[in-house]
C-alpha cells in the first residue's frame, strides 16, 4: 500500500494568509449555518453555539460532533431541530479543527477552555471505530451536557410511595425518604422507588436580578412549580417527557430569595423531570435539573385544503401509504390518498386534509400525516398487472382527478369526486372504466364495508371483488365514517 505523505501545503498556504485563525475558519466552514454571531443563521433556524452547553464544559463532546457530524432530532437551548451536520473530521486536520473549536468556546460570551490539536488527535483516535454521524442521544450518553451551578439553595427532597395520576395533597402524606440536595438539583433518582411514587422539593430560588422570569417544565408524569406559594407552571396527567406536554409559565420576580416548591408524580414506566428558567428576552434556558426539557415547537399549521370549492391535489410523502402518494382533499371534509406505486386508493379520511407543517420545516425529513380524523386504510397492494404503469391524472373543472394507468393494450381510468349515497349522505364516488383489450379486470374492494355499488360484487377468499369488463364503467360510493 502506498504511503500518504502528510504534506500540508494547503494549510501552509492558508496559514500564510492568516486563515489558521479560528474566526476565519469558523466564518468559512461554519457560519452559513451557525451564524457569524453564533446565534444560528436565519434568525435561529439553525442551532446556536453562543451560550450553548453543547460546546461548553469538557471539549470532547464538541470535538466528537465536529469530527463525525450529528444528525436527527436534537434539543439546543430549549428548541427542537431536525438537521444534519456533516462530519468535518476527514476534511479538516487537527490544527484547524482545534482553532475553530477554541474560537467557538471563547466567543459570544462562551467561556470554555482552548482546544489543542493534541486533544483533537486524541478524540480522532478514540472514535476510529465510528461509522456515520452521532445522534444526540448517543453522544449525550457518552458525553453528557455540563451542569451549571444551580441557583437553588437549602434544597430538600421528600419521596412518597403510592399510586397517583395527579399531584396528591402532600401535607397528608408521610415521607418514605428525605434527602438534602446540596448540589441544588432536582433528581428523581433521589427517590428509592422506580414506579408508583411522588416527590416534592422545597428550597429557595435565588433570583439573580429583578425581571420577568420564564420557567419551562416537562415531566413523566405530572409536576408543578410554585414560587412564593403561587403556581407558576404545571404539567398535568400521565404521559411521556418528550416535549409534547412541556409547559412554560412566566412570573415577575425581584432579585433575591423566593420560596421554591416542586411536586412530582410518577405512575409507572419511564420517569423524569426537567425544569429550566431564563430571565429577560432571548437566550437559552438555565437548568435546575440534570436533564433538559424541550419545547416541541408550536408550529403554526400550514393548511393544505380545498380552495374556492375545488379539490386540491397534494403530492408528497403521506404517512400510511407509499412514497408516490397523491393526496386529494375534496370540499366537504372528505380526503383521499391514492398510491401511484400501487395504482390504487390507500387511505380515506374526514375533516382537515393535510398540515404541511410536519413536512415544510428544516430539511423536511418527516412525511405528512393526514390532518383529519377517521383514517381508513382501504388497501395496501397492487391489483393491476405487474407491467401496468402510472400515466398521470387529469383534473376536471372542480379539480377532481381521474388517474390513468396502462398496460398492454388496456387503459384503466379511475375518477374520484364528491357525491352522495342513496340516502343523501355525502360520500366519495369512485368511477372505474376500462378501455381496450378483451380481458376483464377483477377489482378488489378490500375490507371496507361501506361501499354502495350497482356492480356485481363477488366474494373471493373472503374479500369483495367486482368485475370490470372493457368498455364499461363501474361506480362505487364510499361512505366515510363519522
Amino acid at each position, binding site marked *: 500500500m*502506498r504511503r*500518504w*505523505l*502528510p*504534506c*500540508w*501545503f*494547503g494549510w*501552509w498556504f492558508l496559514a500564510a*494568509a492568516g*486563515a489558521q485563525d479560528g474566526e*476565519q475558519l469558523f*466564518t*468559512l*466552514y461554519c457560519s*452559513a*449555518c451557525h451564524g457569524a454571531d453564533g446565534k444560528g*443563521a*436565519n434568525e435561529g*433556524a*439553525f442551532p446556536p453555539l453562543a451560550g450553548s452547553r453543547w460546546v461548553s464544559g469538557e471539549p470532547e463532546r464538541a470535538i466528537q460532533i465536529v469530527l463525525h*457530524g450529528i444528525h436527527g432530532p436534537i434539543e439546543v437551548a430549549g428548541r427542537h431541530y431536525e438537521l*444534519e451536520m*456533516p*462530519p*468535518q*473530521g*476527514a*476534511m*479538516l*486536520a487537527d490544527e484547524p479543527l482545534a482553532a475553530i473549536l477554541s474560537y467557538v468556546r471563547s466567543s459570544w460570551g462562551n467561556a470554555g477552555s482552548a482546544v489543542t490539536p493534541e486533544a483533537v488527535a486524541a478524540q480522532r483516535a478514540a472514535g476510529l471505530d465510528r461509522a*456515520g454521524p452521532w445522534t444526540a442521544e448517543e453522544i449525550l450518553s457518552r458525553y453528557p451536557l455540563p451542569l451549571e451551578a444551580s441557583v437553588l439553595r437549602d434544597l430538600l427532597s421528600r419521596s412518597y410511595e403510592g399510586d397517583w395520576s395527579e399531584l396528591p395533597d402532600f401535607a397528608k402524606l408521610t415521607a418514605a425518604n428525605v434527602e438534602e440536595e446540596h448540589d441544588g438539583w432536582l433528581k428523581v433518582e433521589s427517590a428509592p422507588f422506580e414506579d408508583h411514587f411522588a416527590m416534592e422539593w422545597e428550597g429557595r430560588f435565588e433570583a439573580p436580578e429583578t425581571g420577568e422570569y420564564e420557567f419551562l417544565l416537562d415531566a413523566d408524569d405530572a409536576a408543578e412549580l410554585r414560587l412564593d406559594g403561587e403556581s407558576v407552571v404545571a404539567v398535568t396527567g400521565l404521559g411521556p417527557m418528550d416535549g409534547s406536554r412541556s409547559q412554560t409559565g412566566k412570573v415577575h420576580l425581584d432579585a433575591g430569595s423566593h420560596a421554591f416548591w416542586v411536586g412530582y408524580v410518577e405512575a409507572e414506566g419511564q420517569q423524569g423531570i426537567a425544569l429550566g428558567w431564563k430571565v429577560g428576552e432571548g437566550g437559552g434556558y438555565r437548568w435546575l435539573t440534570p436533564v433538559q426539557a424541550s419545547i416541541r415547537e408550536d408550529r403554526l399549521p400550514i393548511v*393544505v385544503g380545498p380552495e374556492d370549492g375545488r379539490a*386540491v*391535489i*397534494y*403530492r*408528497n*410523502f403521506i404517512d400510511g401509504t*407509499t*412514497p*408516490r402518494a397523491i393526496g386529494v382533499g375534496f370540499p366537504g371534509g372528505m380526503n383521499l390518498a391514492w398510491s*401511484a406505486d400501487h395504482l390504487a386508493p390507500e387511505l380515506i379520511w374526514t375533516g382537515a386534509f393535510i398540515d*404541511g407543517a410536519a413536512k*415544510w*420545516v*428544516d*430539511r*423536511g*425529513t*418527516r412525511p405528512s400525516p393526514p390532518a383529519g380524523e377517521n383514517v381508513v386504510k382501504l388497501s395496501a397492494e397492487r391489483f393491476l398487472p405487474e407491467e401496468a*404503469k*402510472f*400515466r*398521470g*391524472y*387529469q*383534473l*376536471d*373543472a372542480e379539480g377532481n382527478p381521474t388517474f390513468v394507468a396502462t398496460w398492454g393494450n388496456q387503459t384503466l381510468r379511475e375518477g374520484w369526486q364528491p357525491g352522495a349515497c342513496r340516502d343523501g349522505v355525502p360520500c366519495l364516488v369512485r368511477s372505474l372504466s376500462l378501455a381496450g383489450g378483451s380481458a376483464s379486470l377483477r377489482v378488489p374492494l378490500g375490507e371496507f364495508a361501506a361501499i354502495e355499488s350497482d356492480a356485481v360484487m363477488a366474494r373471493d377468499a373472503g374479500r369483495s371483488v367486482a368485475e370490470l369488463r372493457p368498455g364499461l364503467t363501474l361506480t362505487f360510493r364510499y361512505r366515510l365514517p363519522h
Partner: protein
Amino acid sequence: MSVSTMLRWSSAGILAIPCWAASLGGYVREEIPLPPGEVMEISSIALMPEDQVAVTTRRGDLWICDGAYGEDLSQVRWHRFARDLHEPLGMFWKEGSLWLTQRPELTRITDTDGDGEADRFETICADWGLTGNYHEYAFGSPPDREGNVWIALCLTGSFTSDAPWRGWCVRVTPEGEMIPTCSGLRSPGGIGFNREGDAFYTDNQGTWNGSSSLKWLRPGSFQGNPVGNSWHRLAGWPAPPEPKDPSRMVVERARFPDLVPPAVILPHGKVGQSPTAVVLDDTEGRFGPFAGQMLIGEQTHSQVQRVCLEKVGEWYQGAVFHFLEGFEAGIVPMRLAGDGSLFVGGTNRGWGSRGSKPFTFERVRWGGEVPFEMHHLSAIPEGFELTFTEPVDATSAGDPASYAMDAWTYVYQSEYGSPEVDAVAPTVRSVQVMEDGRTVRMVIDGRVRGHVHHLRADGVRSVTGEALVHPEAWYTLNEIPEG
C-alpha cells in the same frame, strides 16, 4: 424604480466583500418581487414563450411570472399554475407544456382548457426507486439534443442506495423510456449541458467525494461512489468497479477505465461548499465576455462560479473561477435566457447560506463593460496558457513573479470528504505574452497529473493598469497534454 445593485466582486477569497464600484462595469443584480405572502423557496426555473418565466417551489407550487425581463421589476405579475407537486427540481417548457422533474416522476403539465391553470399531469416516467427518505432528490435537466431528460438521482440519505437507481443518472426519452446511464453519483445539486451537448452535474463533498466537483456524465461511466453499484445487474452492465479505500482518483481510474475523474474540482471551502445549478452561457456575448463557458450555482456561499472546460485526450478538465456573489439566499436553480438575463432562485431551509433571506428570486444582467478577469486557462504540454478578458500590460504579465501556483489532490475514500493532500508547489519558470496581447504562455515545472492546480495572478495588470477582479483559478489537471 426597482432596487438594483451593481455587482463587482472583491477577490478577498475567503471573505469576499461586494464592492459597489459601478465604474468597473460588471454585472447588475436585481431582486424580482415575489407574490406577497407566499413561501417561494425556489427549486426550478423554466423559460417560456412570450417572456414568461415559470418557477417551482420546494413546497411544490408552480408559478408563472410575467414581466421578469422588464426594466421595471416592480411591475411583475404572478399567477399560480399548479400546486402541491412533490419537491420539484428541474423544469423546462416544450411544445405547449411544462416538463417537470419532481421527486417521484417526470411529468408533463398542461393547461388544456386555457384557464391559466394546469389540468393535465401526464406521468412520462416513474421508473426509479423511492423509499420515502427525504434525501432521495431527483434533479432533472432540460432536454438534450435527442429530447431526452437526464435525471440525477441522489443516494438514500446521501449515504446508501436503498432502492433501484439511487446514486445513478438515468435518461428518459420523450416516449418515457428510462435508460440507466451512469452510476456512482452521491448527492447531486444540479444538471445541465456544455456547448458540445455533453451532460454535466455537480456532486457534493462527502463520501467518496473529497471535494465537491463538476462531473461529466459520459454514458456508461462510473462517477466514483460505489454505494449504488448493486444496480449494475439490473442494468445488465458488467461487474461494477470496487475501488480501494482509501486511495487516489488517479490510481483508481487506472484500474477502472469507466471511472470518470471530476472534470473540475470545486475545492471545498475555497471555492464553495454546495454546488448546485449547471448552466451554459450560450448567449454569444449578451451575458458578457464568457460565451461558451459554464456557470455553477453555489448554495452555501450564495455565489455563482464560472467554469471553462477543455478536452485533453478523452477526458474533460478545466478551471473554476469566482464570478458573482452576494445573492440573498442559497442558490439552487438558474436559467440563462437568450437575451443575457440570468435568473437565479434560492432557498436556505435546512441548508444554511451566506445570503440570509429564507428564499429569493433574482436576475443578473451584464452591464456592458468588460471586467478584467482571467477568461480561460488551458493546459499545454509545458505548462498553462492563460487568456485574459482584456489586453495585458506586457511587463507585469510577462513576469513570472506576477504568478504563484500550488497544487494538491484529495483522498478518494469512503470517509466524508478529505483533507487536501500530496501538496506540491509548481514553479512558474517563464511567461511569454502572446501576439494577441491577451494570452500568456506559462512554462511551469512540477505539475502533477490529477492534482488541482491553484493559480494566483495577483501581479498581472491590464494595459490600463487594472488588477484582476478575481486573481485566482483552480484547474483540475486530469491529463497533461502531450507535445
